[in-house]
């Protein structure tokens, strides 16, 4: 497992640079008003559908949730982009025993209320049009291991174009409560119901 070597100065610079890149690549980034609970770390779950979504989550962490962002990445992906290691990227290898170490590492990060960890519960890249979010079981272990106060937030990112040549990112945020409050099955169900509702709400967004 590769732990994060987050350097504050570099991460701040990266967040600024990525904000510039995202504003250039996207027409609009529409984030609904959302304030995380005070004194709680944030476990951010996100649908994984593109190259951009981790950066969208980093943007959310910096400019809206005001937390230090860490992201769980596949080991081979991180090895190819080791620079991300300085911005909070740490690895997980799905096939090896080290997976448990990675989950424990993520849980430890979440004990600090200043931190936020981004996890893609689907574990792989799936189309943005999918109606079902399959949550991998490792997340259950991760949540169980969190000892400090932690809020779980699910964000459904949807990309739409409408009148612009550039795409727009629409964030749909769901507060899933405090870690350990909901049983895992109920959490999965809640995420899926919300995701389907977000797809319906997307039809009526302002453009």
């Amino acid at each position, binding site marked *: 497992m590769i732990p994060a070597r987050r350097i504050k100065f570099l991460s701040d610079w990266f967040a600024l640079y990525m904000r510039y890149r995202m504003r250039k690549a996207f027409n609009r980034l529409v984030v609904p008003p959302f304030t995380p609970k005070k004194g709680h770390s944030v476990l951010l779950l996100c649908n994984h559908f*593109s190259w951009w979504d981790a950066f969208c989550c980093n943007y959310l962490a910096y400019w809206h949730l005001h937390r230090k962002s860490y992201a769980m990445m596949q080991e081979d992906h991180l090895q190819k982009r080791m620079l991300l290691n300085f911005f909070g990227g740490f690895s997980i290898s799905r096939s090896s025993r080290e997976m448990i170490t990675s989950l424990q590492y993520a849980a430890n990060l979440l004990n600090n209320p200043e931190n936020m960890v981004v996890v893609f519960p689907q574990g*792989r890249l*799936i*189309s943005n049009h999918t*109606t079902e979010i399959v949550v991998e079981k490792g997340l259950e272990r991760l949540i169980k291991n969190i000892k400090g106060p932690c809020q779980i937030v699910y964000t459904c990112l949807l990309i*739409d*174009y*409408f009148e612009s040549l550039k795409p727009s990112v629409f964030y749909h945020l769901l507060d899933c409560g405090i870690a350990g409050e909901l049983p895992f099955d109920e959490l999965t169900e809640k995420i899926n119901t919300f995701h389907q509702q977000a797809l319906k709400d997307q039809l009526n967004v302002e453009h």
Partner: protein
Amino acid sequence: MIYPKKNGLLRRVLKTYVHFILKRYFYRIDFNTIEIEPKKSILLVANHFSIWDGLVLYWAMQRLSAKNFYVMLLEETAKKEPMLKYGGAFSINKTSKDALQSLNYAAQLLAAPQNLVLIFPQGKLYSNFIDEVQFEKGILKIMEQAKGKFQLIYAATFIESFQHKKPIATIYLSRETNCTFENIEALTDSYQQHYNTSRQQQTKLVL
């Protein structure tokens, strides 16, 4: 009503520009090949969610057949982008009596086998995440007038970026053998079936 204008030079300039921006903005444009009857014109019915879908279909259809490309646009769009009339765009104003003239013109175009007319029967921009398409009635008039002279092709387009920075446009094409519909609901249902299967295929894309 704005009619398409013939100008070889401007048409070529427009074609080069469209190719240039498609190459610049898209990683790839995918489409499936279908059999096209050379002795009949083409009525291409597509979903409308961005400005790109017309351009992407123009690119794809050029590779599938050598027919002359025409597209029905809203009058406001045709006025905003006056160059498009050299690429085969003609306008429709849904609120005025001119609308009938535009529909007749489209039917006239379909009478000649060397033509292809692209129509977005949804009539305005919707989200790419729409479940049920809704068509406006006008298209039936065109089909009645040009009965037997055209072949009907359905197109469903989706744009997603997956593992790349730039998006991939995927076009699902299918040829509908039945070209007579009693009412607009029957046509909508028929297109909806194609749209649903295309969407299912799109959501199956897992990386």
